[in-house]
């Protein structure tokens, strides 16, 4: 009974993960600029990969520790790397999509930059 429940839970998790991975791929093609694409490529794929690996761990007995370790590592590093890429490209002068309004980062970024100039 428990095995069957865990197995079906794994199937549901893998399906959710595959759906979110598909959304991430779609977003990378459809969204207008780099920041929106990064958002699609990070948020959707983080949930997708974590959900898929946990589902596989539930389906195949004995793989759950490995899947959990993989999920924790992805949860930790994926947002950090995406943050680094977005920050670096913003500082390098990549213009956001004009529809991004208001650009909250611009004002804050400007004040921080001026402070560092004064020092």
């Amino acid at each position, binding site marked *: 009974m428990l095995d069957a429940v865990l197995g079906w839970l794994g199937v549901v998790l893998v399906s959710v993960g595959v759906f979110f991975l598909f959304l991430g791929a779609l977003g990378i093609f459809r969204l207008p600029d780099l920041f929106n694409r990064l958002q699609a490529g990070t948020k959707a794929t983080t949930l997708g990969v974590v959900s898929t690996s946990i589902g596989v761990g539930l389906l195949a007995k004995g793989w759950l520790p490995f899947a959990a370790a993989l999920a924790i*590592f992805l949860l*930790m*590093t994926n947002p*950090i790397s995406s*943050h*680094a890429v977005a*920050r670096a490209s913003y*500082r390098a002068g990549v213009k956001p999509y004009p529809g991004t309004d208001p650009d909250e980062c611009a004002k804050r970024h400007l004040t921080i930059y001026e402070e*560092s100039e004064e020092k």
Partner: protein
Amino acid sequence: MRSDTPELFKKIFALSAVAILIVGFFLAFIEMPKGWSVNVNGRVSRLYILKNVRTATKLLDSGSFFAKGMKPLRTDVAYTPIEFKKTANLEDGAANVVTSIVVDYRGFDTLGEVTVLFLAVSGVMMLLFGKPRKEKKKKTEPSLIMYVGTRIAFSIIFLFGIYIFVHGHLTPGGGFPGGTVIASGILGLFLGKRGYNPNHAGLKSFEALSGIAFVIIGLIGLFSVNSFLANFLPTGIVGNLYSAGFVALIYIAIGMKVGAELAAMVDTMITDTEEEWS
């Protein structure tokens, strides 16, 4: 610079070289032995030809394993299947056959590969070292997220790199991928904090010591088994962590050397493009 050799001689030389290559290829193709046979009784070939040992044993016993025209080279040795965690005293003892070939049978070649990497890295460092770029990039301090995140990720990446090269004789991987993983973790540390300054003398001496350790292991083989880089340790049971003799030792030396080397190269490349900061 123009050479004095006439163009005609060059053309004749090139044409004859191409002709020799084509003729040699066809000759080799014609002279290939007809039919095919596999030495199933050799210890190494058994390990990687027969993936499913039990099925293959059954097929061998019933005489239906070989295709038409295919016959075992040796029939005088009794056939015994090899099983992980049970069979002991194999020729090399590494569960990963690629590793046993790269490190054991072709150990001298791997020493050459390490030298190739060393030469490439020293070339890059010679070009970059001490020459600041004309246009220095203005760099801002990385955010706190990067600083904390790279530091946490570095420990895990470092551990994973060590795992890769310690288990080189059991799983895919080995010294070169393990060292590269460690160097990528150190690159993360560079990205996390501006002006991150590793211990240069430590990196250099670490690299040199691990390179010397490789040669010393080879010399021990030379004096104990009368062959350079010969496997002088007991090979143990195939599939265990303590098996395959000196393969793990060599891979630990290679991994440390590659990691230190690539980290030193990353350091040279990053600190040169960075603005001097006080």
